[in-house]
C-alpha cells in the first residue's frame, strides 16, 4: 500500500520544488505507474535470453534473483527461462544465509548467478530488506552468497 504514500508525497508542491521536478508544469498528477504507457506498449522482445548470451560473452557480471512469494513473475518462471540458456554449473545449488537463517537458495553458473530470496514478493527489498542488501553486497563484491 506504500505507493499511496508516495502519491501523496510526490504531488506536494514543496517536494517537487525541492527536487527540481515538474518544472514545466506537467498536465497530469504524478503517479506511480502510467496506464497509457502500459496499454500502448509497442515493441517487446519475446525473449531476453539471446541478449543474456551476448552480455555473458561480453564478460559482464550477471545476477538474477527472485523473491519466492511472487506469483506474477515467480521463481519457477525465472528458473524455467534461465534453464534454456543451458549454462554450465560452477557452484551447485545451495542455501545461502542471512544471519542464522536461510536467505534463499542459489546456483552459480558459468556467466550468471541465480538466487532466490526466501519470503520476498515481487519487490524483494521491500519484503526482505536485509536479505536483499546482503545479496546486493555480494553482487558488488563479485563474491558468492554466504554459505553460513
Amino acid at each position, binding site marked *: *500500500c*506504500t*505507493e499511496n*504514500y*508516495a502519491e*501523496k*508525497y*510526490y504531488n506536494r508542491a514543496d517536494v517537487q520544488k*525541492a*527536487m*527540481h*521536478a*515538474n518544472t514545466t508544469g*506537467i498536465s497530469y498528477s*504524478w503517479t*506511480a*505507474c*502510467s*496506464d497509457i*504507457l*502500459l496499454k*500502448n506498449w*509497442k*515493441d*517487446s522482445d*519475446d*525473449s*531476453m535470453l539471446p*541478449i*543474456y548470451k551476448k*552480455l555473458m560473452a561480453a564478460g*559482464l*557480471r*550477471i545476477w*538474477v*534473483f527472485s*523473491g519466492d*512469494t*511472487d*506469483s*506474477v*513473475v*515467480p521463481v*519457477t*518462471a*525465472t528458473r524455467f527461462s534461465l*534453464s*534454456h540458456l543451458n549454462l554450465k554449473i560452477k557452484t551447485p545449488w545451495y542455501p545461502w544465509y542471512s544471519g542464522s537463517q536461510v536467505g534463499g537458495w542459489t546456483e552459480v553458473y558459468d556467466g550468471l548467478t541465480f538466487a532466490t*530470496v526466501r519470503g520476498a*514478493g*515481487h*519487490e*524483494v*527489498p521491500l*519484503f526482505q*530488506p*536485509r536479505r536483499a*542488501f546482503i545479496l*546486493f553486497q555480494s553482487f*558488488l563484491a563479485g563474491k558468492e552468497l554466504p554459505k553460513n
Partner: protein
Amino acid sequence: TKEQEFDRIISLPGQPPVTFSQFSGYVTVNENHGRALFYWLTEATTQPEKKPLVLWLNGGPGCSSVAYGASEEIGPFRINKTGSSLYLNKYSWNKVANILFLESPAGVGFSYTNTSSDLKDSGDKRTAQDALIFLIRWMSRFPQYKYRDFYISGESYAGHYGPQLAQAIVNYNKKFPHPIINLKGIIVGNAVTDNKYDGIGTVTYWWSHSMISDNTYKKIMHSCNFTSENSSKQCDNAVTYAVSHEFGQIDQYSIYTPSC
C-alpha cells in the same frame, strides 16, 4: 559543474538529517520531441568517490523508480502514511554504492515528453536508446562518474530494460578505446525474461503453491500456448477462472500478504 550544483537537493520536506549528498533534475534525451528524463541520485553515505554507480530501473512498463525503487525498496528514505515526512531505511543500498534512480521512459513519474504521441508508441527499443543518451549526457553533468564502475539493476519489466540498456552500452562502447560508461554488470529481480517459458513457469508456480486446482492447471496448460500475442478464448477463460474463483483476495505480488 554548475549544472550539477543546480541539481543539488538541499533538503527534502520532512527529511531527517543525513550524511550523504543527493541530486535530482532533468536530462533532455530528445530535443525534437521534447523528451526529458528525471533522475534522482543518492550518493553513498561514506566515501562516495570510491563507490560504484548503480542505476535502478523499475518495470511496468511505465512504473516509477522514484515511487518503487527509491521510496519502497532500496532508497534511503521511506514515506510515512500521511505523506508528511520521511524516515530512514536501515538497509538502503546507498550504504555501499551511489544509487541513480531513473524515471524511464518519458511519461513515467516526473519524466515527460512534449509530444503526446510518444506516450502511445513507446517501446523497448526507444526506451533503451533514450536511457543510453541519458547516461552519456548525465555523465557530462557529473563527470566524476565517468570511468567509474557502473552497474544496472532493476526488477520486473526491467528484466527487459536492464539487459537491453546493457546491450546498447556494450555496442556504444565498442567505438571507444576507453569508454566513459564503465559497465561491469547487471542484477535484476523477478524479471520478465521469456514470454513462453515465463508463462509455463508461472502457471506451474500457481499449481505448485496450491493457488489453483488440478483441474484448472490442466485446462490452462492444455489450452494456452504461451507464445502467440492473441490468446485463445479457452485459454483466457481458464486463466480468468483461476484469477476470479481460485486465487482469492490475495496480493498476487506477495501471495501470503493481505491485499492492499
